[in-house]
């Protein structure tokens, strides 16, 4: 018995909602669906908050360390004497924190969607999928073992696929959902290989025994694999590839910008706050293994994260699609989190990066969800995605403007807002040991401030476009989540996060690092100032700059042609030299063999079908004759022996 046995209800309540809605989606009126889905996710939210209250406040650290508790579990699959796969709920610092993030954002998005999807024919379908996603994501974060995570990992992938392709009549949405599914699925193959490799050598799937440093000596991890990597390094890099696919790390980031074809609430929930940080969460889950068993794998995580962060930030400065700017911003911020994990060590003060990464995950979920919901409100009002056709909206959409400004300030690292605190921790962590990552992240901080304020000024200031309908603030259902998230974007930075989430379970006392904070604040002010200068009013300066930097601008605008590289590789190399020969072999050799067998059967039966005359007595005659002949032979044989 323990106090967390009810935790399995947290994911299962949305599952119930999904089943109820999907089997009645033609029957349920919109109001019933909305009320049902929202109240069910509301229950999950309350339970999550209650769990956090119980875990962090009532129970607190045991002998100075937060324990890892199995809420409840059962054996799902037995794979031999020692190895079995369980299903259950694991309650520890990271999972409780993620429960809060997922259920909060999910609840906000549910409320927001009531307003946003109001006139949509697929209203019920949309809510059913939202519930399915909430179920999968909540199950993912409280998974007790790698295999359970993998199962729900795929389920969130499916939900994401369904929701990106929500407007299935639009070819671009269908293509985007397919792209997202294939890219993440491709990465998941490596994830599975990594799971198999590490569990083969450690004889366990369970996170508790897998990530306990005291067990590491007992694991049989000797020997090297190809490229001279040790077994844990290879396994953990493979797992990281899976996480990189889900979290859109370079070069597997190509699906996320396209995923913006989905409705805006979906972008806020799945492609900004929860699912895309699953990769970060996965690395954080197995952080002890990364940090102690394979520091080289962890360094790779850090460098990939930092590079992706810079890469996506550069692209974001040039995009003109509202949601794509935010998508690249998301990629960049997830790169930040990955980089923070990469520069971290295990335990005590060295684990600052881990804590910073989780902290940034938490704050980022709040303000990025707010940015996307705000984007949805704007797009809802002006019926276009292109920021060139917006401008001057601050006069028409007052509440949206204020909330969006708060989120923009938060992501830009403006002092006093949540993003400032988490970014400060990340940059401090990088400063200690990785100068290259440190400077990259500093540059990215400036770029982030620049492109976010470019977006903000272009949409809410600049010259006013002529609008067919006068844009206005959305209804209450959409405004309330915006306001709540805006409040959360401010206050979540003041949570003493290190006290709750840390790499080794011991509370970590953190404080603001003023030297670093001043530098990063200055950098972001520079970014804001440049954006102010260039975009607050429309000026010729931008076009001059674009002309000056023509080639570079074009490359960044076209996302450095990564998509084209992929197309080239798949079409001109894989399809031409692998798939076509295989198809030829299949069509001519495999099918040919089958056709010859069929041809033989057909011709033989053509020749002998005349024997089936329909005359009963002919058959009887043949039968009797055959019996006589066989009897004759038998008699002959018996006489002669």
């Amino acid at each position: 018995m323990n106090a967390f046995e009810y935790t399995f209800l947290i994911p299962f309540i949305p599952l119930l909602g999904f089943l109820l809605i999907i089997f009645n989606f033609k029957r349920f009126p919109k109001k019933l669906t909305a009320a049902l889905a929202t109240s069910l996710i509301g229950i999950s939210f309350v339970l999550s908050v209650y769990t956090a209250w119980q875990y962090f406040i009532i129970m607190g650290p045991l002998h100075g360390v937060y324990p890892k508790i199995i809420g409840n579990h059962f054996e799902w699959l037995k794979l031999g004497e020692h190895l079995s796969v369980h299903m259950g709920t694991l309650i520890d610092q990271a999972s409780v924190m993620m429960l809060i993030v997922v259920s909060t954002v999910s609840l906000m998005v549910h409320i927001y969607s009531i307003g946003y999807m109001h006139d949509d024919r697929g209203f019920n379908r949309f809510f059913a999928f939202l519930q399915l996603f909430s179920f999968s994501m909540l199950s993912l974060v409280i998974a007790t073992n790698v295999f359970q995570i993998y199962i729900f990992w795929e389920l969130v992938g499916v939900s994401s696929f369904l929701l990106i392709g929500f407007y299935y009549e639009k070819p671009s949405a269908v293509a985007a959902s397919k792209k997202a599914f294939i890219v993440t699925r491709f990465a998941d193959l490596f994830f599975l290989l990594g799971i198999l490799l590490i569990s083969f050598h450690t004889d366990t799937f369970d996170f508790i025994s897998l990530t306990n440093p005291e067990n590491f000596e007992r694991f049989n991890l000797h020997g090297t694999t190809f490229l001279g990597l040790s077994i844990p390094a290879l396994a953990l890099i493979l797992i990281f590839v899976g996480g990189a696919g889900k979290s859109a790390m370079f070069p597997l980031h190509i699906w996320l910008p396209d995923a913006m074809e989905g409705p805006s609430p979906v972008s806020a929930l799945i492609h900004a706050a929860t699912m895309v940080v699953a990769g970060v969460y996965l690395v954080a889950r197995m952080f002890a293994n990364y940090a102690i068993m394979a520091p080289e794998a962890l360094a790779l995580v850090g460098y990939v994260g930092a590079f992706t962060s810079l890469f996506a930030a550069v692209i974001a400065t040039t995009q003109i699609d509202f949601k794509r700017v935010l998508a690249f911003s998301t990629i960049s911020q997830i790169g930040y989190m990955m980089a923070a994990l990469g520069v971290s060590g295990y335990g005590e003060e060295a684990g600052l990066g881990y804590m910073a990464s989780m902290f940034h995950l938490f704050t980022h979920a709040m303000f990025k969800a707010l940015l996307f919901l705000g984007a949805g409100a704007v797009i809802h009002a002006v019926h276009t995605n292109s920021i060139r056709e917006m401008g001057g909206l601050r006069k028409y959409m007052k509440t949206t403007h204020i909330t969006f400004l708060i989120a923009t300030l938060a992501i830009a690292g403006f002092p006093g807002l949540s993003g400032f605190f988490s970014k400060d921790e990340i940059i401090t962590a990088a400063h200690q040991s990785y100068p290259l990552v440190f400077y990259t992240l500093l540059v990215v901080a400036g770029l982030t401030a620049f492109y976010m304020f470019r977006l903000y000024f272009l949409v809410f200031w600049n010259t006013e476009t002529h609008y067919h309908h006068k844009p206005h603030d959305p209804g209450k259902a959409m405004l309330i989540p915006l306001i709540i998230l805006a409040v959360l974007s401010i206050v979540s930075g003041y949570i003493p996060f290190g006290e709750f989430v840390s790499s080794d379970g011991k509370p970590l006392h953190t404080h603001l690092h003023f030297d670093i904070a001043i530098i990063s604040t200055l950098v972001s002010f520079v970014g804001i100032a440049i954006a102010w200068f260039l975009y607050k009013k429309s000026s010729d300066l931008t076009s001059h700059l674009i002309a000056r930097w023509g080639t570079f601008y074009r490359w960044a605008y076209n996302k450095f042609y990564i998509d084209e590289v992929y197309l080239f590789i798949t079409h001109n190399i894989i399809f031409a030299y692998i798939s076509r020969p295989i198809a030829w072999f299949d069509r001519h050799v495999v099918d040919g063999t089958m056709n010859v067998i069929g041809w033989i059967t057909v011709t033989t039966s053509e020749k002998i079908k005349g024997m089936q005359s329909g005359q009963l007595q002919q058959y009887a005659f043949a039968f009797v004759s055959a019996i006589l002949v066989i009897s004759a032979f038998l008699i002959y044989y018996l006489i002669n022996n």
Partner: protein
Amino acid sequence: MWQDISLQDVLIVSTLMFFSGVYGFLTRRNLITMLMSVELMLNAVNINFVAFNYFLHPENMQGMFFALFVVVIAAAEASVAIAIIIGIYRRFKSINIEDVSKMKF
């Protein structure tokens, strides 16, 4: 008198009966007659059962009982066969076997 009859005599009779049945089944065109031929064959076998029982194992009764079973089953078979023949007659307005040759390639 009848005690002089040997097993061989009985077997000759039953063989003659059996092959008259086969002959009738192969040459008669009337379905009823064909059915009668089948009965003839069955009864030839019956005679064999009884004869072998009587002459070879007089202390046992299995052959006799087998014969009884065959009689009963033959009755059942005849009823089914006649039902089929009636069905055929309704369909083809004929019970000539040469008219019933629909089931072919």
